[in-house]
């Protein structure tokens, strides 16, 4: 009963947020809708007992990625429609009819491909034997510390690379070689 309510609410939030991202003409609003969608995904994770993943979703996305996006939007001139100096004003930044047509075509094609792939999976109709609540944190920690220790360590190298690379790229420079 409550599980279904939670699932429905999260699903509506997720799908509604995603569709709002598609239809929003304002970049800042799109970012807020993305936050709603990510929240919904966190709710969906809780519905299948992946509580640690849900919390990670909250911490990394709601706290991290969305803030980063908002900062980047502010750093690149907010939502003001600046005339860019290469005169490329033929296509507005948030798309026009032509790009939307191409995009819906791409979406339809990929939807067909994915549904084609998914049909055999859905035909099996796997028995959804939901297991009782179990703490996933300890099992995840054990897996990370034993079987997936290499991935755990290498992810730190990945993060180091991302940190150094992005810092080098975006570091403020005195003179801009243009």
């Amino acid at each position, binding site marked *: 009963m409550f599980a279904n309510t939670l699932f429905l609410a999260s699903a509506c939030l997720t799908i509604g947020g995603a569709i709002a991202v598609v239809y929003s003409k304002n970049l*800042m609003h799109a970012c*807020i809708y993305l936050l709603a969608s990510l929240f919904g995904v966190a709710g969906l994770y809780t519905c299948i007992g992946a*509580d640690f993943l*849900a*919390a990670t*979703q909250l911490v990394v996305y709601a706290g991290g990625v*969305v803030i980063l996006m*908002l900062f980047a939007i*502010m750093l690149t001139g907010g939502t003001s429609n600046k005339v860019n100096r290469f005169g490329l004003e033929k296509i507005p930044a948030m798309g026009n009819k032509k790009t939307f047509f191409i995009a819906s075509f791409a979406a339809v094609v990929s939807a067909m491909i994915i549904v084609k792939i998914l049909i055999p999976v859905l035909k099996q109709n796997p028995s959804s034997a939901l297991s009782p609540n179990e703490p996933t944190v*300890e099992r995840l920690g054990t897996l990370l510390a034993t079987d997936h220790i290499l991935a755990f360590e290498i992810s730190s190298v990945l993060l180091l690379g991302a940190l150094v690379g992005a810092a080098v790229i975006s570091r403020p420079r005195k003179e801009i070689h243009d």
Partner: protein
Amino acid sequence: MNSTVVSYFSQSNEFQNVTNWLTQILGFNASSLVAFIIFAVFSLIIVGAMATIGGLGTYAERKISADLQARIGPNRVGPFGILQFLADGVKMILKEDIVTTNADRFTFNLAPVLCLVGVFATLAVVPYSSGFMLADLNVGIFYLVGMASLVGVGVFLGGYASNSKWSMLGGMRGASQIISYEIPATLSIIAIVLLAGGLSMKTLIDGQGGAPQDWYIFHNPFAFMGFFVYFISALAETNRAPFDLPEAESELVSGYHTEYTGMKFGLFALAEYIEVFVVCGVAVALFLGGYKVPFDLGSGQILVEKLGLDGMLAQNIGQFLELGSFFTKTLLLYYVVIWVRWTLPRLRVDQLMTLCWKYLTPIALVNLIGCAVWMYAFNGKSIFALIFHAAGSAGGH
């Protein structure tokens, strides 16, 4: 479903009777419905209590600051001016709601709500007493960190949406300050998670004892430093002085809520004061033994033995005493927060960032490694246990 308020009530016979009765009437298993009702009632109680605490926080702030500056402070409304917060609330509701012409209306209205949602959602995992906890999640403290980061988004959006220079500067500063200080706070929390071996609030508190030498703050020198790192970061995360740069009135007018009037401003203020309570509560739960007292109150055994009370009644009284213990510790920290605000001058923005990234974060990392090494080297014993052990063996020798 362990150690939440519902499981606490499910020990009593009345709960079973009511559940069975409802099940018979409604024709389906009503335990979920009963749980929902109990949760709803207690959430209402907690939100009411928190709103009162937030309101009294503003009163206490003014009264304590008046004390520290040898003034009288609010003294007109009610005895000692204690109803001042009600007057403030009424005033806020009655104020005109102004949205500036250039503002982004949708975001402008959303920002305070986002702050409030982020703070209210954290209230679910704050451990008030051993039986009186709304949700004992397996990921409790991690969930709290995630939800609290919504406040940063709210602050940023509030600053952005106003489309005023002061707001924008305050919002940018506020967001970057909140996210920066989240790092030392989270690292200090990880150090305690290492010691306790679990993420749920129940585990974190059960690892500690009632007496001060069993608290995690005195577990080892690193945890002792970790407490101060956490506390300073928490001050900065809640935009409290000396870290109240986002709303520094002498340079930024009022920061990210310059353009907010009336109740929307009130929602920001309410969220801020409740968040101070939440971070103080987390500090108490992680470092200062939570609701625990040196003897076991939660089960009420000691009351049964000493006073000859009935079992369930003794347990209830024990729970309330634990609640009192938690609130006493938390409100003491709350007092320290206000005290700090009126004692220390405000930092400059570069000092703020230097303090976070060059002092607190390295110290927090050292604490984390130090706690891990301590756990490994001394097999999880606290420093007092080691001293007592050494003293005991020396005496026995």
